Structures are given as structure tokens and as C-alpha cells.
């Protein structure tokens, strides 16, 4: 067992770090957050340099690396800027489904434009609730001769207003069989409804999508295989691991800033880092971040190596790393004191972003329930 990055992985990490240092401008990030805008030009540059789609095979515009290398990139991105980093890492959120379960023509058609920065892809899974009884309204699809027909809608679609490719998870009417349908946004009958505003993640639009008699050609469907991972499971594993990588980067970034501030800030005639109260806080945070990194890397490794434990370890990594990110950002604000509370310094933004990624999609209560289930069975 080796606890070391390879030379190539180190180079990727370094390149991602340098890219983020150069491109993720703080003033720009603050402006984007205020306006709720996606950093389009940075995304295009990240695609040109191969950071987006790093895990796609070369023939689809990628670099033929795995999720592990993707995680290394995400970590360096959110470490430099939580908002920009998160929005970039979510821009190809649906690609894991297409990569693992799509057919040749689907991969060519949908992965290549994403890797070139010409398209953003998203996933629509969560059902909006009926207002009265809090039960989800299931998105059903009807099968007709040339394909499928979708009605109703989905909530909490990340990058919903920007994505041109959306993978919609539906249930086939009557048979109750699940299916993933790749939908193109410019088709007739697709309407983007209210944008959700969140505590953080303001650079990534989150919306509801309504489908009104949307016709999906047969070639756009991804079937569930009888055995093995299905598209939804794949998405969930990858999303948990990517979320944990975002969280890890935010925690590291907040920690870096806390150390820097504590070394510079002077009170009572000495640098505040000389106070043991601060030192112990930093020691605990360092320990938590190292533990989180081990878990996140392990989960990504398990996914790439097709190890079944990924089902549980992806939950463990997401639970732990997002909790560590929230704790670290809270403590980093504390170490910064007053400046930590002010928007212009962006430490408070890291907390808002960390808290948001921790709770979008499967919550940590869900992760605990899943870990428990796997442990019992």
C-alpha cells in the first residue's frame, strides 16, 4: 500500500493550483457571487487546459485519467476560491452517468462538447414536493414508438439554467422501471422555473425544471442494468466524492488563511499564533483535514478501482469531509475575528459555501443512515 501521489498526479495537482492562483481573482469572485453568475470564461479556460473532463477518455476530449485526478483538481480549485471552485466542479455533474453507462454515440455527442467548454451538463433527480402532503410527485415517462415522453418536473437542478444537457432520472409508467433520459435544453416543452437562492453556492444556479410533453428520442435513454451499478448509484457515488473533494479544498483554504492571519496579526505584543489557544485550534483542524484527505482520496481510489466498498466509503468521505469543512470555516472566521465576518475578506463566504454543499442533495443524516444500513447488512 502506497500513500503517495505519483509524479504525474503531483504535476496535475501543481498545475491545478497554479491555474487557480492565476485565474480565480477575489474581486471577480465577490462580483460573481453578488450577481449570481457562473464564471464562464474561467470555465472555458479550465476546459482548454484539460482540467474539466480530465477523467474522460482521450477520444471524448479528455485526458484518460480517473476520478482520483479529478478530485485532486477540485481540491486545489476550491482551496483557492470556494465559489468558483464549486461552480466549475459541478459543470460536468452528469458526465459520470454518461461515461459509465452511456453508449458510444451518447459519449461522443455529449461528453465532447463539455470537455471543450461548449456545454454544461446537469442531472435532474429530486422530485418537487406536493405542497399539501409533502410527498414527492414522481416524474413518469411514457414510452411511445420513437422514444419517451416526459411530463411534470424536477427540483434542485444544479446549473439548471445554464446546462444544455440534462440527464433526467424517470420512472416508466406502469412498469415502474427506472430510466435515465438525456434531454437537450433547447427542446420544446422544457421550462426553467424559479431560481433557488441559497446561503452559499451563489455562482451555481439551482432551479426547478418543468417538462411539458417533452419528446425524447430512443437513442437518448440509458437503461438500468440488471446487475451491477446503475446510473443513479454511479451518480451518487461520484457526487458524494466530488462534494467531499470540494469540502476538503474549502477546509484547506480556510485553514491556510487562518494560519496566515494568525502569523500576521499582533495583539498583546505578540503574533496571535504564539497563543496556545490558537495553536490548539489549528492543531485540531490540521488533524481533521488530514483525516478528511485520506478518506476522500481513498473513496476516489475505490471508485476508480471498482471496489465495492465505494458504496459505503463515498458516504463516509462526504459525511466527514463536509463536517470538517464547516467546522474549519467556522473556526477560521473565529481566528480572524472581526475581519472574518466581513464579506470582502471572503472567509465567511467559505462557511456559507461549505454549509450549502454539505446539505444539497443527500444530507449527512442520509449518509449516516446509509453507512448504518451497510454496516448492519
Amino acid at each position, binding site marked *: 500500500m502506497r500513500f503517495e501521489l505519483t509524479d504525474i498526479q503531483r504535476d496535475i495537482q501543481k498545475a491545478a493550483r497554479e491555474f487557480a492562483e492565476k485565474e480565480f481573482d477575489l474581486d471577480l469572485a465577490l462580483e460573481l457571487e453578488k450577481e449570481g453568475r457562473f464564471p464562464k470564461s474561467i470555465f472555458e479556460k479550465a476546459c482548454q487546459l484539460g482540467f474539466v473532463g480530465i477523467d474522460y477518455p482521450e477520444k471524448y476530449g479528455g485526458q484518460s485519467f480517473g476520478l482520483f485526478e479529478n478530485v485532486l483538481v477540485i481540491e486545489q480549485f476550491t482551496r483557492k476560491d470556494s465559489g468558483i471552485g464549486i461552480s466549475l466542479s459541478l459543470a460536468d455533474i452528469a458526465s459520470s452517468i454518461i461515461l459509465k453507462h452511456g453508449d458510444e454515440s451518447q459519449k461522443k455527442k455529449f461528453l465532447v462538447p463539455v470537455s471543450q467548454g461548449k456545454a454544461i451538463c446537469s442531472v435532474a433527480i429530486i422530485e418537487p414536493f406536493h405542497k399539501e402532503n409533502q*410527498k414527492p410527485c414522481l416524474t413518469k415517462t411514457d414510452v411511445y414508438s420513437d422514444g419517451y415522453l416526459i411530463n411534470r418536473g424536477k427540483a434542485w437542478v444544479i446549473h439548471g439554467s445554464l446546462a444544455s444537457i440534462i440527464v433526467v432520472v424517470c420512472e416508466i409508467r406502469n412498469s415502474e422501471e427506472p430510466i435515465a433520459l438525456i434531454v437537450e435544453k433547447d427542446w420544446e416543452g422544457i421550462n426553467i422555473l424559479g431560481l433557488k437562492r441559497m446561503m452559499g453556492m451563489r455562482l451555481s444556479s439551482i432551479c426547478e425544471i418543468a417538462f411539458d410533453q417533452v419528446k425524447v428520442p430512443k437513442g437518448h435513454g440509458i437503461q438500468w442494468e440488471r446487475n451491477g451499478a446503475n446510473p443513479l448509484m454511479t451518480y451518487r457515488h461520484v457526487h458524494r466524492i466530488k462534494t467531499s473533494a470540494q469540502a476538503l479544498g474549502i477546509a484547506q483554504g480556510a485553514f491556510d488563511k487562518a494560519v496566515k492571519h494568525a502569523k500576521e496579526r*499582533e*495583539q498583546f505584543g505578540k503574533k496571535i499564533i504564539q497563543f496556545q489557544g490558537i495553536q490548539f485550534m489549528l492543531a485540531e483542524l490540521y488533524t481533521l483535514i488530514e483525516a478528511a484527505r485520506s478518506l476522500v482520496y481513498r473513496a476516489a481510489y475505490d471508485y476508480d478501482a471498482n471496489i465495492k466498498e465505494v458504496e459505503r466509503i463515498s458516504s463516509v468521505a462526504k459525511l466527514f469531509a463536509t463536517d470538517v469543512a464547516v467546522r474549519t470555516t467556522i473556526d477560521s472566521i473565529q481566528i480572524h475575528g*472581526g475581519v472574518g465576518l466581513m464579506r*470582502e475578506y471572503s472567509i465567511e463566504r467559505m462557511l*456559507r459555501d461549505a454549509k*450549502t454543499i*454539505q446539505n444539497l442533495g443527500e*444530507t449527512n443524516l442520509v449518509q449516516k443512515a446509509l453507512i448504518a444500513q451497510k454496516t448492519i447488512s
Partner: protein
Amino acid sequence: MFEITEKKKSLIEKVREISKRIALVNREVDEASEFPWPIFRVFKENCILDLPIPEDFGGGGEGILTCCWVLEEVAHFSPSSAHMLAGHWLGFTPLKLFCNPFQREKYFPRLRSEMAAFSLTEPAAGSDAGGVITEAKRDGDRYVLNGTKIYCTQGHVANVITVFAKTDPNLGVKGLSAFIIEKEFSGFSVGKIEDQMGMRGTPAAELIFQECYVPKENLLGQEGEGFNIAMQTLDRTRPKDAAISVGIAKGVLDYTIDYVKKGSFMREPLLRSQGVQFLLADMATAIEAARLLVYESAALIDEGRVSTKHSAMAKCLATDMAMRLADQAIDILGAEGVSIEHPIEMFMRDAKMLQILEGTNQIQRLIISRSLLA
């Protein structure tokens, strides 16, 4: 032991009704990040603003414990509005403690309807008040102030501000003196208004003093007594920050319980989740524990047995508790918890402010441990 007395019940009920109405504009105030004058007027017209001002001067004449009950009730529905009151009362406290009869006559009646503020912090003087460099030079029958203060809660809307400056720059905290500054004094101006994480209805302001002339009658207490004035003030105001935290936590818990009763988890009703049940149990327990400590620290002050240690413990415990509770509540609400359609994320941002202002919780621990080891 610390039950709200019969006499005060109607006051607290009135405060609750007012706070519920104020809460309707919470989000608007948060987005605008401006001082909400209509809320100020509501507090003024309902005689809440002047609760701690002595009855001789037309105020409510209330002690710290009653003020804590009021703040807890307001914060339950609108933390930022509670912070507005607490900021005013913080500004009034040094005056209440140290004004001479002439100063009382001049300022107490005004503060029934005008805002007060307290200004100690400077860029180089946060936790360490000895780092103050704003200078006050005696010049005949006046003082001349030069320097810049930061993070003065509501400093831009206050008419009367207690400002701490060095009358002897060669001494550390012993060179500090307190001055009553009026907004109209020449040489005084307001600088930057902060865009802060939480408590956005009560932004902090930068205060600039350039050859600011202050009549010598406006020296509060004696020259060199500034640090003592500041510390005695904070002993009496920390329980109030703690009370706001208890209110925030109660608001968060109530909202979470309502949500839990309606929500679902893993295809089951959310309230059947034991993980959630236990979280709620811990939250409720933490609130009760903090509340008792807050009331005790407040009652000690009212009885004339001010305990620096108790005030620090109440502030530290209650503000940490509120932050933890808001964090846990969001974990229960999930994506809804971080959505701005629900108030919890705002309460969390408000709670974070309280862990830092009026002495970071690290300073509170310093105060507590000093008294243990003395």
C-alpha cells in the same frame, strides 16, 4: 428560580407580539444591509428602547435580567432587531455607570429616543484594548481627538457615542479615557459601513476623528479610567449577547420542530428518525443549560454582585451553543435549511457574529481561566 415574574409577563407578551410582526421583514432587512429605521421607531414608540433608562428620566428603569428576557424574546423572532436594542443599551451602559449629574441630565432623556453606541475597537486594538492609538489631547477647556475607530455597531446612526481614546499615549490601558461624543461635534465623521455576514440590520461603522473638539465636560469618569469603564460595561452587557443567543437558539429549535413534524426522511416521517429525535433532545437541553447561566449572570448584576467570570461564561457558552444549534438545525432541514426561503441560514449567520463581538470567545475563556487560576 428565574421565572419571568407576573409583573413582567405583560411586558414580555407585548414584546413577543411586536417581534412577530418585525420578523415579517427579517429577510428584507438582511438583503438591504441597512439600519431599519421603522423597526427602531417601533421600539421607541412602544417604550422598549428606553427600558434600562432610569425612571427619573422617563425610562423603564429595568434591570439586566428583564433586559435579557426582552432580548431573548426579540431574538427568538428577529436576531438582528435584538442586536439593535442591545447595541443601544451597550452604548447607554457606560453612561449609566459613570455619568455625573450634569451629564445625566443632558444625555439620559435624549437616549429615550436617540441611538447610543460604544466604540473601543481599532484596527490594531481588537482583543487587546491597550492597542488603542486614537489620541485625546487636552487643550484648555476641551479635548482634541484624532484617530480612527472600527466595527462600531450602529455607529453611523447613533447620536451619542462613548469613545475610548488615549489621554496618555505612553501608558497602555491605563492611558485610556472615555468620552461622550455627539454626532454633531466638528471633526467627527462616519467612514466605511461594513458589509457583514450576519446581523445585517445593524451594520458596524468606521468612525473618524480629525481634530474633533470635545468639551472637557464630556470626559466620562476620570482621565485614565477608560479601561475600567469599558470592562465594567462589558461585564454588564455580555449576559445580553448571551440572551440574544438563547433567543436565536429557541427560534431555531421551534422552527426545526415544526419542520420535523411535517418532513420525511428515507421514506418515513422525519419525526420517527431517532437520530433526529436525539439531536432535538440535545438541542433543547443545551438551550435550558445556557439560559439558566445567562439568567444567573444577569441576576447577580441586578443584586449588585457583578461576576466578571459569570458574564464571560454566559457569553461564551450561549453564543457557542447558538452557533452549534443553528448548524445542527440546517443538518436536519437539509437543502431547505440552506435555502433563503427558510430563516435558519440567516439565524446561523447572525449567531456567528455573537461569537466574536464584545470580546471573542477566546477572550472570554481567558477571563474565565484567569479567575480560576488567580
